[in-house]
C-alpha cells in the first residue's frame, strides 16, 4: 500500500483575462478525492473568492473541466491520484478560451462554433407527420451514435493545438457535432453542414494530432469524426455539391 501524504501541495491559477499568477495552498489529503473536491475545499476553507464552475459532479453536465498539471480533464470524475505529480497539483483554467476569473473560462466562442459548424438540427418533417422509426442496425445511425455522448465539456477544444494556431478554427467538438448531424437520417441540412465545415476555418485544417481523441473523457473520437467530414466533403466536391 502506498502511504497517503497528509497534505497535497496545490497551485491554483488566480486572475482574469488581463493576466494572473499561481497561488499555493495546502489541502488535507483524503483516500478518495477528486480534483473538484480539492478546488471546492480551497474555496470553502481557504479563500471564498475563488471562482470556478461546476454543476452535476457526476460527469453529465460538462461544466467543470480544467487544466490539471497541464492536461485538460473533467475535474469531477478525475481522482487526485490519477493526475498528481508526486504530491503536487497545478490547476488552471482551460486553454484556448478567455478567462473570466480564476478557473472559470468564457465558453461563448466554443458554443458559437457549434452553430457556425451547422451543428444544429435541420428538421425534415413537421409535427403533423408520423415519427419515422430508425432501427439500431441503420449504418448512419451507428455513425451518429458514436458522437452523441458528447457533454460539451471543451476538453478536446482545450487540448487542440490547431485551435491554438488558428483561433477561428471550428475545433473538434463542433466538428464532431456537425458529423453527427450529417449522419442523422432525419436531418435535412446535409449540404449546409458540408458547406459550413469546408471554409477557411473548417475541418480541413485538422492536423490529426489526436489530442482530442486522447483526452476525451467519454472516450469519443472527434479526430475520426473530422476524418469522416473530410471524406464526405471531398465526395461532395467531386459531385459539385460543395466547394
Amino acid at each position, binding site marked *: 500500500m502506498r502511504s497517503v501524504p497528509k497534505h497535497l501541495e496545490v497551485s491554483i491559477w488566480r486572475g482574469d483575462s488581463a493576466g494572473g499568477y499561481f497561488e499555493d495552498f495546502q489541502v488535507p489529503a483524503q483516500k478518495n478525492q477528486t480534483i473538484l473536491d480539492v478546488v471546492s475545499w480551497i474555496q470553502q476553507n481557504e479563500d471564498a473568492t475563488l471562482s470556478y464552475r461546476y454543476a452535476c459532479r457526476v460527469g453529465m453536465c460538462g461544466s467543470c473541466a480544467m487544466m490539471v498539471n497541464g492536461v485538460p480533464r473533467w475535474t469531477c470524475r478525475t481522482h487526485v491520484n490519477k493526475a498528481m505529480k508526486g504530491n503536487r497539483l497545478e490547476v488552471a483554467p482551460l486553454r484556448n478560451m478567455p478567462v473570466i476569473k480564476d478557473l472559470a473560462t468564457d465558453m461563448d466562442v466554443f458554443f458559437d462554433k457549434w452553430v457556425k459548424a451547422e451543428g444544429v438540427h435541420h428538421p425534415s418533417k413537421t409535427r403533423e407527420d408520423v415519427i419515422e422509426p430508425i432501427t439500431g442496425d441503420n449504418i448512419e445511425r451507428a455513425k451518429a451514435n458514436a458522437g452523441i455522448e458528447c457533454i460539451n465539456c471543451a476538453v478536446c477544444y482545450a487540448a487542440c493545438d*490547431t485551435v491554438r*494556431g*488558428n483561433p477561428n*478554427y471550428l475545433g473538434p467538438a463542433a466538428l464532431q457535432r456537425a458529423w453527427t448531424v450529417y449522419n442523422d437520417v432525419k436531418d435535412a441540412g446535409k449540404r449546409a453542414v458540408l458547406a459550413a465545415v*469546408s*471554409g*477557411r*476555418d*473548417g475541418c*480541413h*485544417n485538422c492536423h490529426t494530432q489526436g489530442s482530442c481523441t486522447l483526452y476525451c473523457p467519454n472516450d469519443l473520437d472527434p479526430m475520426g469524426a473530422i476524418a469522416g467530414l*473530410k471524406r464526405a*466533403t*471531398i465526395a461532395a*466536391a467531386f459531385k459539385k455539391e*460543395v*466547394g
Partner: protein
Amino acid sequence: MLNLRLYLVQRMSAMIMAPLVLGHIVVMIYANRGGLSTGEILGRTQGSVFWATYYGVFVAVVSLHAAIGLRVILAETTGLKGPALGVFTWGFCLATLLLGGHAVWAVVAP
C-alpha cells in the same frame, strides 16, 4: 489556412508525389554508390523523355505541395493572413516552379 480546395490540392499532390519520391529514393541509393559526377547524372538523363516527364511532374506537384505546407506553418505560427498569405503561397510556388523547371531542363535537354 486550408479550405476544401487547398486541402484537396495538398492531398492530391501528395498522392501523385508518393510513388515519384519512392522512385527517387531508390535512384538515389542506387546512383550514389561511389560518388556522383555531372557526367554520370547527365549520361542518365540527357535526352530522356522518361526522366523529363518524371521530374517535370515532380517539380510541378512539389511546388504546390511545399507552398501550401509552408502557408499553413506560416499562418499557424506567425498569425499571417489575408492577401499577404496568398502572395507568399503563390510567390513561393512560382519561384520553386521556375527553379525546378530550369533544373529539369538543365539535366534532360539533349
